[in-house]
């Protein structure tokens, strides 16, 4: 078996390696490539059919007036769908505002909530696993079932308002009141933040004890220890939670769809997405409405591409910005 030894001065990272002297480069046989392709083919075909083709197709449709189910000739309209979105659609901008509200409020609140619950749980001496399981359980509930449960729980004369009534508080309309509908969804998001809490909990337990002991010797209080030791140590998890939360919330759909749909009246095909008063009209629900209620496939495809570009841009900015606040043990980034 031929071995090569790196010369002095070569680095593993960037330096070019020279082939070992006297060794002839062997061409891989064509037969081997076919075998590799054969084994890869299920993945390649699946990727091409179910990912690449739809991506390219939506880009194409976004430049046309295509409507699903229509026999009208499909016309190339250039950037007209994009222009209409920016200049003539109030609902588009409303959905952008509603989505940004959720991104700005729900993502940090959910992260802080998961972090706090994890912090509390890690400080519990007895029965920690029981509490952790109890907090984690709701995240195993299917999204639709969870949303339906909250519709019952947050009914204006439902259990929560009855409890509030006992202490003399008149509960709000929650999902039926435009002022309360988005905060109610945030409340629901806190209920299902168990998986993030588990990751935070693991990260907190992973912080070296010696650091806290040293801080104790220096006379640091709990808050100082949290700020100077725990927070930097768990910053990669905060970063992960914020980034995944950001991407998820930009595409926020199911909960809003269920809540609006179930809070709505009659006619099965004529659901008023965004109910009440369009306060729950998020970007993805507006996209769905345009594509599957109004059948404007081209227009909805343009919306999908804008969403993709927005998420991509925000993710890149966030990753770059994270270098300032994320601390990795050993200094790696």
């Amino acid at each position, binding site marked *: 078996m031929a071995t090569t030894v790196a010369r002095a001065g070569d680095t593993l990272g960037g330096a070019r390696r020279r082939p070992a002297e006297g060794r002839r480069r062997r061409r891989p046989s064509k037969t081997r490539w076919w075998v590799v392709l054969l084994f890869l083919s299920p993945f390649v075909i699946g990727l091409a059919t179910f990912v690449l083709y739809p991506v390219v*197709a939506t880009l194409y449709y976004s430049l046309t007036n295509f409507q699903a189910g*229509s*026999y009208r000739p499909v016309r190339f309209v250039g950037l007209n769908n994009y222009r209409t979105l920016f200049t003539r659609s109030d609902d588009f901008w409303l959905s952008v505002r509603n989505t940004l509200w959720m991104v700005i409020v729900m993502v940090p609140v959910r992260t802080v909530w998961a972090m706090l619950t994890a912090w509390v749980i890690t400080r519990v001496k007895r029965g920690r696993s029981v509490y952790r399981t109890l907090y984690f359980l709701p995240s195993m509930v299917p999204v639709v079932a969870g949303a339906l449960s909250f519709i019952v729980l947050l009914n204006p004369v439902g259990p929560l308002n009855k409890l509030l009534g006992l202490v003399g508080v008149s509960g709000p*309309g929650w999902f039926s009141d435009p002022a309360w509908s988005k905060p109610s969804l945030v409340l629901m998001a806190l209920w299902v933040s168990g998986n993030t809490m588990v990751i935070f909990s693991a990260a907190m337990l992973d912080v070296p004890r010696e650091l806290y002991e040293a801080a104790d010797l220096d006379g640091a209080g709990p808050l100082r220890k949290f700020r100077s030791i725990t927070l930097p140590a768990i910053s990669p998890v905060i970063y992960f939670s914020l980034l995944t939360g950001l991407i998820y919330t930009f595409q926020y759909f199911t909960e809003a769809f269920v809540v609006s749909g179930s809070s*709505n009246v009659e006619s099965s095909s004529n659901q*008023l997405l965004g109910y009440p*008063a*369009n306060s729950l009209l998020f970007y993805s629900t507006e996209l769905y409405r345009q594509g599957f*209620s*109004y059948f404007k496939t081209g227009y909805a495809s343009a919306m999908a591409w804008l969403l993709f570009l927005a998420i991509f841009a925000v993710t890149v900015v966030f990753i770059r910005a994270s270098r300032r606040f994320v601390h990795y043990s050993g200094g790696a980034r």
Partner: protein
Amino acid sequence: MFKSIIGVAAGSALLLAGCTSAGPGSSQPDTAISAGASHAPTTINVWTFNHLPNEVAAFKSALARLHTTYPWLTVNFVPNKDDAAFAKAVAAGDPPDVFVSSAPDNVGKFCSNGTVADLGPFLSSAKVNMGATFPPATLVYTKYQGKQCALPLLTDAYALYYNKKMFAAAGITTPPKTLSELAADAKKLTVKNSDGSVRTFGFVSRSDYNGNRYMYTGVQSGNKFYGGDGKATFGTDPKWQQLLQWDKNLDDSYGAGNVQKFVGQYQPHADDASNPLLTGAAAMEYDGEWHVGEIDAAKKGLDYGVAPMPVLDSAASTYGVGLSLGTVAYLPAGSKHRQEGFFALQQLTTDTTFLNTLADTVSNVPSTFAALKSWDKASDPHWKPFVDMFSNPGSYYKTLTAAGEEDMDTWKAFVLKYEQGKVSDLPGGLSGIAKKIDDANAQAGQ
């Protein structure tokens, strides 16, 4: 390399272009099959939105009878399909041969897009006299720009339900006929608790409660959603302002918080024993005819009356009209068995036994003159107002457009915004919403 890229791009474009429906191609002429003629055995697909077991059973029974009468025709029946599923099937090039939709809102869209066939040639060939077969109110919501693109399959009408006992206690002897009378009666019937909350609402008019949105489509205010020029009339017809102001004044009289609580409590609309009319939480309610069946099932002994919905004072002479819309049945343009599909469609929409059985099953009104005439409930005091309203030539649904349900959604959102005090300039808001709806119609190719 460059050639490869060009090749791949050209191939992709060809592939993508192929994914948009190329247009229906049928070898069959647009003529009806003679019922008595012999025919090669054919199996067709019938899709419907209906999904409840009793509804599905009624359909299956009718289709089995159809097969017994015409053994050459076998129907593959598929329940629980909505408009979106239908559009996807059309886009995939495999539509059903008959599609029954729950609401007529997409008749204009499907008709203008060529998604469904113009039934005119088939109906002429089958010598169906539309005017003598179907009441005029059903033709409003099954036609688009003169083309008969769907047929009615049962219909709905909306009316005022009122609690007779509460009326008597408040000294009200007859149901209100104008919206002013309705508001006055509602205030008389309202009972407040000592803490300011409402125990019994006279009438809640907010548009997102139950089917109230249909009160705001023009038929109760004696005006039309669209003018003769096809443009929305919200900015030009003062009756819209009068109607919305009446609505807001009434709801404000209860206190916005009380109305919010009421609406939130009964969403989704309560159609069982917890319905506010049944529990005494409301003395009057605007609802469709199926509510008669719901009341029968949930509280048979309730002493209630049904009357046409009151109209705006300035349109008092139109009292007796009501909003009328219903289930529609399409013949998809891309059907592979258009003649057989039309045959089944014609049978389903005109078969008196089937219509009356299904009407009884789902508590709807039959949609042909013949079925109405033989329907045993037509003279029932709870059903008669609906039958009368349905037969009233002034009853209608708003004109359907190529934008489908987008116009109603836009309007509903505006009305709710106004009701919640978020529209400070009503005339300006109405003009703005009219423009928005006109733009949507223009964009849809109206």
